């Protein structure tokens, strides 16, 4: 395993990751009809080069343990119920992040009859992460900035 660990250490050094302000935020991902691009990039956002967890952002296995619901895809009719169930299972306060252009309602492809409509008509979107798909770095940055802004907005209020 030593060669693997050396490679990983090299990656970390090369990326020169800063720590930033730590927090404790659990994310739950729901694929609502994505092309799998956002999933690939979200997966890499937790890999050593980007390491989302250094900010205290971790992916939770269940919506019951999640603060943020990360939704990808154009929302197919067949995923609408499952998405709603996942959202309803989350403890409050809860946030929704639209991950990728499909979840943001841009350039959606498909047959109208198979799509349940815009995500923002179904759930309130708090954080928008544009891109097709957004790169791992962009996912991390948008999440951090979005969380910061929400926090500032809350304290201002």
């Amino acid at each position, binding site marked *: *395993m030593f060669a693997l660990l050396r490679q990983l250490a090299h990656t970390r050094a090369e990326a020169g990751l800063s720590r930033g302000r730590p927090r404790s935020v659990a994310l739950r991902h729901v*694929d609502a009809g994505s*092309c799998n691009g956002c999933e690939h990039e979200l997966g890499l956002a937790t*890999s050593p080069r980007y390491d989302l967890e250094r900010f205290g952002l971790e992916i939770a296995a*269940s919506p019951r343990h999640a603060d943020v619901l990360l939704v990808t895809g154009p929302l*197919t009719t*067949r995923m609408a119920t499952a998405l709603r169930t996942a959202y309803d299972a989350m403890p409050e306060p809860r946030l929704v992040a639209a991950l990728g252009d499909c979840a943001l309602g841009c350039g959606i492809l498909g047959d109208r009859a198979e799509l349940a409509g815009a995500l923002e008509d179904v759930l309130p979107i708090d954080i928008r992460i544009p891109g097709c798909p957004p790169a791992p770095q962009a996912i991390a940055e948008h999440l951090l900035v979005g969380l910061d802004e929400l926090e500032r907005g809350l304290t201002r209020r």
Partner: protein
Amino acid sequence: MSFRAIAAERWRDEVAAELAGGARFAGGWASGTEWRIVLVDPDGAMRALRCAAVEGRVPTIVDLVPAADWDEREGHDLHGLGFEGHEPLRALVAHPQAAEAWMTPVDGDGVHEVAVGPIHAGVIESGHFRFHTIGERILAMDPRLFYKHRGLERAAEGNSPADALVYAGRACAACAVTNSVAYAQAVEDALGLAPDRDLRVARTLLLELERLYNHLHDIGALCAGVGSAPGTMAFATLKDRAQRINERVAGHRFLFRTVAVGTGALAIDADAADAARGALSELRADAAAAWRELEFAGSLQARLNGVGVLDTTTALRLGATGPAARAAGVPRDTRTESPRLWYGDSFTPAAPRAPTGDVAARLQLRAAELEASLELLDGLLIRPTPAGTTTTAAPPQPLGIARVESPRGATLAAVELARGRVTRLHLRTGSYANWPALAHAARGNLLPDFPLINKSFELCYACVDR
């Protein structure tokens, strides 16, 4: 390509005769009230057959070709065709409430049902699995997919061939190049266009870049399946490096918008080719070193042998394809029969050390294919690649068909054209062909080993659901 029309009463005999002559089933789709299938000869030559439904029904061929099971069920669910003799014709794309309408019936003392999904615990695509278990053992498993069905094939209809490309290309990010090239080649087949050398080289290069990052991803995902964090993280990092090379050489991490219909969409100049070749050479050394570590990681290797076995007979019967089939001793690779690409006569598919058809063989085969892809890319990037184009070589036909080897196996694209518009697009990807084989390979295994077995096939949901 043109169809050979066969009357319903002759359908089964004609298909049986084709199969006896060595042809294999490559996919079926409904168009209006007709059923169409594609057969492939051992040398890769394809034939399209069509059969008009009589009172909405076509005789089934599922007993002759079990690989046609999903195709016929989809033909029923999406296009309303009946298949005489396909009993029971369980729902596949449709999602009826009643379990018996879609599930394999399993009964007996101590049999439990375990329902998983459509939302899974990790960051993966949506789909539902229904397991029947006794204790920890899986008796049977039914994948219930199509939660991500976007109706892409239907939405493509009525568009010009150039405008419809995006429906094939965006069906799946991880197979974007394969699906785009298959679609473009199908249209070019219909329009009688032949690619020049540059276009053949450029598309081959893109397909191998796609295979590279996918295989790196899949090896990492398999490590995750046994909880080997160093392997998972090392191969995730290698995959990211491959995708960053994609971005530099082609402008996109998933190689989106690098394929066009009838012409090239990506030119690689000498500097870009040289830079990519250098970066890939470094990646190759690190990937080889990382792979050697996995080969000697006892706690990983101990979990792989004899798990999720797909034997040769079953692989052939169910029409498994790609690494899953090759690891099971079926030495087929569409790259050996791709005159529209640039693999050359010397290309031979990687073979597993032992065709045991288990998780170990699928993992080891991917590592061998990774090395082969890097070797191919090294040769292709020696010189710059102009975008290339096509020239008219044959009169246009209303049908075009193409098969391309994706990281997960043979992908078929069929395009029907009329008055310059796409009237039907059908995409049958390597993943689509392999899902029934995965369900079969899971039987008899421990339920907690399913994630590992699943990762060893690493099939897409997005391009299956479309």
